[in-house]
């Protein structure tokens, strides 16, 4: 033992070397300093210079060592030998693995639909989608469809960016912050740092959430709303603000389509569309002339109230339509109070508080700036109220409209892109028009004509075959969910199993535990993955999967491509997909092998490049069939998406002077490493606010390569593309919804934000299943990854169902009890505990704690398996049959977002004791079991 009699001022050597890279214990992507001693990782801390985390590090980040040395790490490519699910594998070489993959994939080049390639929460979607485009399959998406596409789509369609990773509150200036439906979010550390700033200043936080833990626990005011009713609550706030004229009129006139003239002739084909001039410019009534004018013409000041008659067709400004709609009594606080579970006086008081802070505590910055119409402003005027929201409002079947309602509220208060309000992070703002349209397959054997995912502006952009069936296996961009901008990964396995819209041959998954926590109805999905047809073959013939660890999904794949851990590979956190920008800077980052793998594993992207070369995919090989990129690091440096624009924006051009644009620089990665693994490029001071309309910002963005020409735009209070879908539903145009969906499209795709009851609240079962059931992410666990982590799992290795006090007493529960929890889809047995800081109609548990025996190198009787459970068994990807026998998908009808939080349940006492049910038989662990003891650090003594 070392001498432990400490000197008064001990000053031990911390490490031999510090290497800077990017954390990937979650998708927040903080900068980390990895301390190495004797070539081993000794200590990980936050990088103080890093724009994301400024030195702090969350529990997961610090536990990175344990993940890096996890006994559940895969060691070599695996080929299945036993039946699917058995966990029986044989280790093979990479060459054999590629041969096998090519044997399955090569034939599909002629029939590329038969490959479905879906990726989880990886951060290389611009690369993986490019691979899928090269292969030619239309069946590519990442996980956004089951995650938060409602949030993304509502934000982009309404204001050119969303909460999530697209923007952030002005933490330094905001005085009133309202947070809806967030337990943790992707911006894990930044939100905590931001809340810390507000707390230090004594600014006020209002948490809207059925559950009062975490961020909501420290909120000064807690609004324990009933799930699925936020849209009502928000529109009641809108009702109050409109009624009192407490809206930012100047802002609405300048920066939104509040003055656009809308066709109000119900009989007209163009009902709901804007009046446009010959140049297709939407028209407003100019207050000076009283005549129609293009909205963006210099000097035009739109009226918000003046009606207009164009050749007998009545037109009204958007704002007038809003006044008419939102002043209706159904949106009044009194009308919504009971359903939301919030007293009407409380709603009125919150509206008053929002108005007071926004308009009476206005802040000004003396920074002159010039707008897109050339008008110079001496000051920046701020409305210091800000909002943030996440899956609590988006993971409902009314989530798209609820998210829109929240954006509407922000915009009415004039608090988007102003000091003290909500600010976009580059490359946002970016309106829907600036995004691509979705692309389907061109011709077998050819690459896809464009990216898979995009933002439809009307029915003409849907991906439907002439016979009306879906072009994509997940049925994204069909009339069932027209704006499914992130695809619908949660439908892939069930659709592929059902052969609807068609059968596939190979399912290729990356970094998504689809046999467990990311699937709805997990037990059924396991059946689908193992189901065999009459020919004795699996219904889904081939499954290739890349994971870094022995997850549940591994056992269900036929071929495993083992990834490295995040400390052992190159990665690129790129402006082309999900960068690490801040509101006042563009930024991107890399990961690089700070330690070399000690196993026969490869970074997945490199494996994908090698596979692409083997398949001779366009873009991966030159005319001679030679590899264009050696590996992913080579791709990161040398690939160009548009001339001068590549995966990494920093230190471009051979001399490293290029910021955003420039030729590839062979030394680029060294520059990143020297700089701590990231690049930051600040936005000039006068361009940091009003970005959609700020000429300075638009120029900067073009110079930095975010886009190729300035693209100013106004916010869409009235969302015309939705009016176009409604027009089709009313029977106009070439593409129209099938009969059974017409009414639904009309009801749910309203051009002004609306609220309708979540689908599971409408069915017959409502009375039988009186409670809402939710999950929350624990701050210290990332989905299923955390359980293999020796330190994190000590904090949470079993989960309880939290039951509100009233229900607890009514059912006669006492400490240590178990309960049956049932939904229309099934029944599980779970341990229960009491909670009072909880909406009285809601039960909940921590997400993804339950594990399947055989996975994660855990013992077969670990608490995760005895007392951990998933709610997923109770959630179906399809709703119970409707009157007409049809089963709608359990998704938002606009975007296809999985409606995880619509779940309704009932609860009854169960016999004492576990284990949690369903209980699964252990599979064989392909990596063995973890060690009996651990004393990390003894090697450094």
């Amino acid at each position, binding site marked *: 033992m070392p001498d432990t009699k400490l000197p008064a001022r001990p000053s031990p050597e911390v490490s031999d070397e510090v290497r800077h890279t990017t954390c990937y214990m979650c998708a927040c992507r903080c900068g980390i300093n990895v301390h190495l001693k004797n070539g081993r990782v000794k200590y990980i801390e936050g990088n103080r210079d890093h724009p994301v985390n400024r030195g702090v590090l969350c529990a997961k980040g610090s536990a990175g060592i344990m993940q890096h040395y996890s006994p559940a790490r895969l060691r070599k490519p695996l080929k299945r030998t036993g039946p699917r699910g058995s966990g029986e594998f044989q280790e093979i070489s990479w060459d054999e693995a590629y041969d096998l993959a090519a044997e399955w994939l090569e034939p599909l080049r002629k029939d590329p639909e038969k490959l479905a390639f879906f990726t989880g929460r990886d951060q290389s979607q611009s690369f993986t989608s490019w691979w899928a485009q090269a292969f030619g399959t239309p069946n590519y998406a990442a996980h956004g469809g089951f995650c938060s596409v409602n949030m993304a789509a509502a934000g982009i369609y309404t204001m050119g960016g969303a909460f999530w990773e697209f923007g952030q509150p002005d933490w330094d200036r905001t005085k009133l912050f309202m947070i809806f439906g967030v337990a943790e979010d992707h911006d894990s550390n930044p939100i905590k740092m931001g809340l810390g700033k507000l707390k230090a200043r004594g600014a006020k936080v209002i948490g809207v959430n059925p559950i009062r833990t975490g961020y909501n626990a420290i909120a000064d005011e807690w609004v324990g709303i009933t799930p699925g009713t936020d849209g009502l609550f928000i529109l009641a706030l809108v009702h109050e603000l409109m009624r009192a004229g407490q809206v930012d009129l100047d802002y609405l006139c300048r920066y939104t389509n509040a003055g656009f003239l809308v066709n109000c002739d119900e009989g007209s084909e163009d009902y709901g569309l804007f009046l446009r001039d010959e140049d297709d410019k939407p028209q407003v009534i100019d207050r000076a002339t009283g005549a129609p004018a293009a909205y963006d013409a210099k000097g035009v000041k739109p009226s918000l109230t003046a009606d207009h008659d164009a050749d007998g067709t009545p037109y009204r400004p958007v704002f007038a339509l809003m006044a008419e709609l939102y002043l209706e009594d159904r949106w009044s606080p009194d009308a919504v109070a009971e359903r939301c579970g919030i007293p009407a006086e409380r709603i009125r008081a919150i509206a008053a508080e929002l108005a007071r802070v926004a308009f009476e505590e206005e802040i000004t910055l003396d920074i002159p700036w010039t707008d897109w119409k050339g008008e110079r402003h001496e000051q920046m005027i701020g409305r210091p109220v800000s909002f943030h929201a996440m899956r609590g409002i988006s993971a409902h079947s009314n989530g798209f409209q609820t998210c829109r309602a929240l954006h509407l509220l922000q915009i009415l208060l004039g608090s988007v892109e102003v000091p003290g309000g909500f600010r976009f992070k580059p490359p946002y703002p970016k309106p829907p028009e600036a995004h691509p349209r979705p692309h389907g397959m061109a011709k077998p054997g050819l690459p896809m004509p464009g990216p898979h995912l995009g933002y439809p502006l009307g029915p003409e952009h849907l991906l439907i075959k002439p016979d009306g069936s879906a072009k994509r296996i997940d049925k994204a961009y069909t009339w069932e969910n027209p704006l499914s901008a992130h695809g619908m990964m949660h439908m892939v396995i069930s659709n592929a199993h059902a052969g609807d819209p068609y059968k596939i041959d190979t399912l290729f998954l990356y970094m998504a535990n689809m046999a467990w926590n990311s699937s709805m109805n997990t037990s059924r999905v396991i059946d689908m993955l193992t189901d065999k047809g009459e020919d004795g073959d699996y219904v889904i013939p081939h499954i290739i999967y890349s994971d870094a660890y022995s997850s549940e999904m591994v056992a269900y794949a036929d071929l495993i491509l083992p990834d490295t851990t995040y400390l052992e590979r190159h990665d690129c956190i790129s402006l082309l997909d999900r960068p690490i920008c801040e509101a006042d800077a563009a930024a991107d980052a890399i990961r690089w092998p700070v330690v070399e793998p000690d196993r026969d594993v490869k970074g997945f992207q490199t494996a994908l490049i090698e596979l692409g070369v083997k398949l001779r995919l366009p873009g991966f090989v030159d005319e001679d069939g030679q590899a264009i990129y050696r590996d992913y690091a080579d791709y990161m440096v040398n690939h160009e998406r548009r001339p001068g624009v590549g995966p990494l924006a920093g230190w471009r051009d051979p001399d490293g002077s290029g910021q955003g644009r420039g030729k590839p620089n062979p030394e680029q990665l060294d520059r990143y490493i020297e700089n701590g693994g990231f690049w930051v490029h600040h936005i000039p001071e006068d361009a940091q606010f009003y970005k959609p309309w700020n000429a300075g910002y638009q120029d900067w963005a073009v110079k930095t390569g975010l886009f190729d020409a300035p693209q100013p735009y106004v916010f869409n209070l009235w969302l015309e593309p939705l009016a176009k879908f409604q027009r089709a539903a009313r029977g106009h145009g070439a593409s129209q919804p099938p009969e059974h969906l017409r009414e639904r499209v009309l009801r749910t795709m309203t051009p002004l934000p609306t609220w309708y009851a979540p689908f599971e609240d409408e069915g017959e079962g409502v009375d039988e299943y009186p409670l809402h059931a939710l999950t929350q992410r624990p701050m210290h666990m990332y989905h299923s990854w955390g359980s293999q982590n020796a330190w994190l799992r*000590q*904090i*949470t*290795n*079993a989960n309880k169902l939290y039951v509100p006090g009233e229900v607890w007493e009514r059912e006669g529960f006492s400490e240590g009890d178990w309960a049956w929890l049932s939904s229309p889809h099934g029944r599980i047995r779970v341990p229960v505990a009491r*909670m009072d800081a909880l909406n009285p109609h809601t039960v909940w548990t921590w997400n993804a704690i339950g594990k399947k025996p055989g996975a994660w190198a855990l013992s077969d009787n670990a*608490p995760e398996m005895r007392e951990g459970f998933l709610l997923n068994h109770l959630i179906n990807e399809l709703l119970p049959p409707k009157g007409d026998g049809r089963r709608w998908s359990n998704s938002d009808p606009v975007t296809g977002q999985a409606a995880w939080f619509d779940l309704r349940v009932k609860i009854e006492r169960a016999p004492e004791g576990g284990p949690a049910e369903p209980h699964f038989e252990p599979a064989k662990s392909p990596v063995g079991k973890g060690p009996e003891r651990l004393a990390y650090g003894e090697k450094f003594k």
Partner: protein
Amino acid sequence: MHPAPSVIVFTALSGLGFGLLAWLGLGLPAVYGWAAFWWYFVGYALAVGGLMASVLHLGNPKNGLKAFSQWRTSWLSREGVAAVVTLLIIAPFAIGRIFLDTDWGWLGAIGSLLCLVTVFCTSMIYAQLRTVPRWNNALTPVLFLAWSVAGGALLAGQAVAAGLLLLLAGGVQVAYWLRGDQRFAEAGSTIGTATGLGALGRVRLFEPPHQGTNYLLKEMGFSVARKHAVKLRVIALAAGSLMPAVICILMPAGYVAILIAFPIHLVGIFAARWLFFAEADHVMKLYYGG
């Protein structure tokens, strides 16, 4: 507190051992030669055995000798020093009695006193702890001394004295229980003071900091069911005090009686010690919901 066998054995046996040695030091019974050897052997065996058991409780016994260094401040250190000094002082007295047929009465008397000091020190290890209000109580040393002296008398064959002292010890034990049951409330530590949140409202543990166990819970998280405790109290009192006392008083002269009474007493004393630990609540538990 976790009723660890090592501490139960330690306190019970060393108490008996020093109790017996105390009686022997006073020349009761007045034995010499082989007879004395066996008495002293039993006394030393119990005292040393008890101390050895306490060593089993240590996580890092190789540093054991250092435990004698802090006698100025630490009751545990004092207990160690006292035990060793006592055993060393009694040794020549015992040698005198066994081999030299001599009775250095003054030395024996000092030894006897030191035995009581040692037992007192043992008791103070527990009694000093404010964190365990049930122990942190003037009756704790009285209790230890009473059981030690009574058990010692029983072993020393001082039947009448033993009978009376056992009844007395039983009485102290009952008083200790009654007092002890009030102590936690008296001490004033609640989940409200532990968290500082008491002024806000009624505080309840929602989630512990770790889902499995840890050292603290293993060591201090023990709690015993009320019903179980009552049963054990009856056993402790009956077997520890009443039954052996009755036997002693009814059969004052018979060594056979002692041979019957002592094992019964031992059962009782173990039950009492088990309860001593098991019923004692540490204030730390408040952080785990009480």
